[in-house]
């Protein structure tokens, strides 16, 4: 290295190397490909020849004309909203109960057990849940017939199948969000609750006026991150358990796109789906940031 460089120049070179090398890898192998889908969606790339032709909006017209694609968009949103609506409140209430209710002495047992599924590869969860859902020997139908109810076609009925998919995702994520919210709830200083208690605030009031506002940041952050995880989780469940069926009833965007690649080798259309997925994701993130984010409270 040049010895006449000053200290400031050394610093500058050092920082440049520290930023440029990781940034290069990150952009080339992750971020640019993700956004390049916006471009390839306008081409007829078939997976082999790199000699691609510009086809304009052709791919987009084709996928929007496909009823399976429209179903996939609706299911994609259903999966996200279903988890946020059912799993988050359940996990949040349980988190409050497990952190603030000293009478539940076994709380760390629940925490450790419930969290475990979120470390288990989706591949295994999917295989195990296929047994749970099996119409003849599955756990649910065995239980239903034992108490005298009609067995349900968990995966073969187009009305039920999305709920079955949703249940797997909730089953896996419940413990994750429980622990996530518990960390936030236990961070709230005890004296705030004590002051509220002295002022006569009930448990419910304490929850809505203290716990929820003070953890709102964490809740919205979880909503934000789940946009991304719902894509991957949903894909794993749909790709292995239902394969999009029956009759595309459980197709979601990511599984639709993946089958476009592996079955039809239609990379152009797959990119178009990917681009729609990306725009949808960023749109959802924007809505959450604009509508749900309030000013955060310092404590």
């Amino acid at each position, binding site marked *: 290295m040049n010895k006449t460089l000053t200290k400031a120049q050394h610093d500058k070179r050092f920082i440049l190397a520290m930023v440029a090398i*990781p940034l290069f890898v990150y952009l080339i*192998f992750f971020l640019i490909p993700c956004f390049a889908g916006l471009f390839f969606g306008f081409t007829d790339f078939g997976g082999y020849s790199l000699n691609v032709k510009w086809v304009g909006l052709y791919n987009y017209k084709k996928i929007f004309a496909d009823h399976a694609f429209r179903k996939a968009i609706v299911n994609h949103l259903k999966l996200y909203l279903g988890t946020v609506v059912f799993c988050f409140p359940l996990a949040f209430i349980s988190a409050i109960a497990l952190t603030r209710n000293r009478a539940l002495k076994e709380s760390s047992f629940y925490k450790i057990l419930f969290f475990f599924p979120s470390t288990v590869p989706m591949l295994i969860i999917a295989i195990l849940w296929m047994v749970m859902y099996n119409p003849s020997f599955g756990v649910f139908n065995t239980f239903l017939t034992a108490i005298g109810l009609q067995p349900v076609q968990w995966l073969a009925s187009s009305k039920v199948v999305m709920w079955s998919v949703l249940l797997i995702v909730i089953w896996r994520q419940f413990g994750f969000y429980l622990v996530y919210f518990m960390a936030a709830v236990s961070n709230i200083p005890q004296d705030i609750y004590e002051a509220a208690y002295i002022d006569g605030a009930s448990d419910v009031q304490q929850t809505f006026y203290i716990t929820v506002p003070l953890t709102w940041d964490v809740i919205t952050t979880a909503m934000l991150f789940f946009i991304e995880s719902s894509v991957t989780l949903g894909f794993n469940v749909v790709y292995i358990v239902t394969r999009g069926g029956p009759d595309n009833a459980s197709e979601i965007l990511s599984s639709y796109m993946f089958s476009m690649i592996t079955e039809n080798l239609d990379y152009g259309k797959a990119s178009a789906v990917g681009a729609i997925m990306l725009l949808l994701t960023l749109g959802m993130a924007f809505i959450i940031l604009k509508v749900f984010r309030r000013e955060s409270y310092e404590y």
Partner: protein
Amino acid sequence: MKTKAGVGTWLTRVFLILWTILIIIPFAMMFLTSAKTNEEFYAGVWALPKNPGATIASNFSAAWAKGNFGSNFLNTIIIVGCALFLSLLLSVMISYAIARKEFKGKKTVHTLLLIGLLTSCMVGLTPMFILARFLGLFNTRFVLIILFAARAMPFCCFIMISFLKSIPFELEEAAMIDGASNSRVFGQIIIPLTRPAFVSAGIFLFIDYWSDYMYGLMFISSKSKNTISMGMLQFRVVSGFKIDWGITCAACVIFIAPILLLYVLFHKQVMGGLTAGSVKG
């Protein structure tokens, strides 16, 4: 804070116990079935195995062969190991610059990383495939390593930046005054201090890489380079085919074993790693 058990406590407890059962059932069934033959499984899902010793041996050896676990284990160890190292190294470099140094365009770089947090790697599969073919990296272990490393960077940086911001600046300044170079400060002071963040991020990445089969399906075409999760795909249940549940569950047990072990030994760190970012700061 309540200390006495009231009606509310019991209602909560009922829900928690029901959920406990729902969590345990699939795993209990997995372990139980891995010790049974297929006939025994169909005779009764919850019946106890008749001849566990011999069946376990035959199920596990059949699963090991069918999933090609021997060579897949080796591939996975190489790929996961290298990807972990690369990803953590790149992340700590850029996080250090963002958290503790001033440079032009810092905000843009930070925003680019945050966008990555919200972007699923699935939307980039096609362009990544083109890139891999273009660079001649298709069907190499290297492409998986670098793609895994790049994909994990937003999350790692998210953990590391907040962690690095919490380290007092005096340590660095003192070392600088003593004449230590930038790279020495980074290598001998910052990296050792960042160890907790490495553990959190590393656990998350390990589980993520271990489970991933999508990149494998996309970028690997020869069987000898398959990862363990791609071997697991052999056991995917395809309707119309007769499934040997004993062998399938044995494969699940093999696949899950390292993660189960990690969880039993380090559940605190695993929970911390996966939910990092939930704590204010």
